[in-house]
């Protein structure tokens, strides 16, 4: 602790330039009371982040909720008219895309949880062994996470294109009537999109788990092997539980990723024809010339409510733990 005693003894005069307050020797063990300036400083330190948070998170959220009960064309503020629940009625009853979108988001979550996340874990475990070129593999698997939307689109276009794409070429069906229509067939394109999403998600999970594995105390593994545990047992009984904090982060990330899944389907066909997702619907109705802000806000509020469920569970778990 930086006690004032230490200060008064050893501080060089020049190092405290700007402080004109005489150094008060405080009694050891007592908490120093905050000076007026400290209060101002603290106020600013707390105030600025709070203001930023208010301006960019809470006020927009509240406005979205309010706007979801109005009709507005996005032009003059005087054009805002109350609409009651009409926008929600539209979302639930009229919009043919909403229920498919919910199903696709759930499918997305399941796919990421069952396939993509375990795949990331597997990659992490493999790369954590001292194999040669581990760093290179790590970079390769992590690259998709950093690529821009446009690039992702082009890459998967090259794979999935019906007549000239790599996949159909490998299947030997390119240019024939049997060629699989990876983007156009509404029964298939969601899986094509999920594979592309996995490609990004696995790299993300891999990096987090690699960090987690490095953090696991090596003596734990040693002790386990001394007790005669084999590699599988060591991993599932010792290492995996020891990574509990990372596991929770991964669960939250997987849920968040599946809720905000957007980029891949947007690149393919803007979220229509079998690729409906709630986040794509929000964008469709909020951005651009086709905007109808009330309906878009209603979609956004529904997405918010869905997101609140896992966030609440996560937060309540974290805070409960800290009590003990």
């Amino acid at each position: 602790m930086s006690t004032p005693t230490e200060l008064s003894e050893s501080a060089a005069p020049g190092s405290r330039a700007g402080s004109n307050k005489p150094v008060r020797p405080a009694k050891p063990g007592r908490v120093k009371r905050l000076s007026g300036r400290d209060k101002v400083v603290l106020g600013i330190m707390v105030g600025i982040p709070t203001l930023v948070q208010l301006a960019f998170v809470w006020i927009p959220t509240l406005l979205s909720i309010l706007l979801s009960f109005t009709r507005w064309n996005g032009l003059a503020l005087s054009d805002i008219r109350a609409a009651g629940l009409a926008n929600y009625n539209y979302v639930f009853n009229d919009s043919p895309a909403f229920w498919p979108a919910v199903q696709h988001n759930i499918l997305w979550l399941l796919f990421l949880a069952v396939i993509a996340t375990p795949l990331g874990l597997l990659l992490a475990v493999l790369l954590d062994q001292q194999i040669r070129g581990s760093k290179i593999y790590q970079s390769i698997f992590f690259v998709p996470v950093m690529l821009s939307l446009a690039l992702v689109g082009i890459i998967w276009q090259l794979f999935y294109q019906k007549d000239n794409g790599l996949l159909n070429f490998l299947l030997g069906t390119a240019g024939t009537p049997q060629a699989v229509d990876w983007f156009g067939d509404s029964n298939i394109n969601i899986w094509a999109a999920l594979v592309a999403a996995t490609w990004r998600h696995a790299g993300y999970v891999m990096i987090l788990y690699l960090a987690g594995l490095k953090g696991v105390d090596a003596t734990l593994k040693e002790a386990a092997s001394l007790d005669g545990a084999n590699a599988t047992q060591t991993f599932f009984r010792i290492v995996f539980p020891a990574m509990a904090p990372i596991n929770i982060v991964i669960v939250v990330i997987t849920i968040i990723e599946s809720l905000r899944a957007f980029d891949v389907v947007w690149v393919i066909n803007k979220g229509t024809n079998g690729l409906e997702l709630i986040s794509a619907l929000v964008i469709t109705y909020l951005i651009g010339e086709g905007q109808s802000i009330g309906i878009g806000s209603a979609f956004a509020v529904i997405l918010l409510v869905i997101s609140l469920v896992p966030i609440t569970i996560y937060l309540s778990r974290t805070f409960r733990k800290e009590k003990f």
Partner: protein
Amino acid sequence: MSSNEDRPAHGILRPGFDRRTLLKTLGVGAVGAAGIPLLAACTGGAAPGASASASTSLTFGSGSSDDVPKAAYKAVTDAFTAKSKIKVTTNVVPHNDFQNKIATYLQGSPDDAFTWFAGYRMQYYAGKGLLAPVDDVWEKVGANYSDAMKKASTGPDGKMYFVPNYNYPWGFFYRKSVWADKGYEVPTTFDALKTLCAKMKSDGLIPIEFTDKDGWPAMGTFDYINMRLNGYQFHMDLTAHKESWDQKKVSDVFDTWKALLPYQNPGALGMTWQDGAINMGKKKSGMFLLGSFVTQQYTDKTILDDIDFFPFPEIAMEGQDAVEAPIDGLLLSKKGGNNQGARDFLAFMGTPEGQDAYAKVDPSNIATAKGADTSAFSPLTKKCAETIANAKSISQFFDRDALPAMATNVMIPALQGFIKDGSIDVKNLESQAKALYAAQ
């Protein structure tokens, strides 16, 4: 605080200094973080540029960001400046951004003149009072335009708002050599079209090239069947939602279309129009219902010269009178309305001289003013121009005639669903339309 381990070796802790430095950094960081989005928000509209009321200069916002149209508009502004000594400052914005941000743009600090489209997409903003009427300009250049052009340039209040630059027709494009080989003849009735399709199919061709991954190309087929079946006025009333979607006339359109579905490319939902153009270039398909921009895809001159065009066959009414020919041109923002220089610029765009300057650089479109130079037209362009000139009414394409939200958010998924399995729910279309048009 374990940070004690990090303190300097000589044992001096300087909390005052550390705290202040930290604060400074934090403060600057927070201001910076707060500033960035604000600045970003400012860029929503293009820079206002030179003062608006002076008539010796004007600002011109252009969404024509592709190389050729960009150079073409530059030729127009240069010609205008050379003629009138009025300086034009052009702000080019990528066309998707330009279209998506038009509402914020017009409410912010728009340029005096800007590029836009005819149809509902123009009338809507005119109705909201965001545009300046240009009746005085039309008094000067009105004689250069056909009645159909004039109709398309009129706002909801009957005043003139739009000055057309060029347009391009939608219709069936095909390779002459394929048709000559097989002895196909241009169909003028819907039955003849169906017979031709059946024949092409038995010859191993995809009769009608069709692509709809992007969603909008199918609107062309819908518009044409609708106009040939129910007439031009019905198309206008339906897109303006003065007519209900939930009626027999609309379901008839889809029923008629169903007869063509087996002849359209079954892979449509995975293809862009460029893919379709390649297919037709390779002689895999018989014809392609698209705008004349399809020819941009053929860089090989022999293929380009082999492309021909015929208008959509007649079905039930008005023969082949109506042509779908989206018009691009210029508008004046409300602010620009006070600038005589900007009005002069729009008038210049409405003269053969101004349009020739444009067409010289971008010949893929058709100038709209009478008297524009047609000597450089290819036979295909000439044919397209004649079709438009002879049209009794010109529609602007569904996504320009209808509310954009209706076109993008409702029609695209609905048409894709129809293409997939031939099912359409007109009741649902109507309830969606009601909600969306009510919000405007």
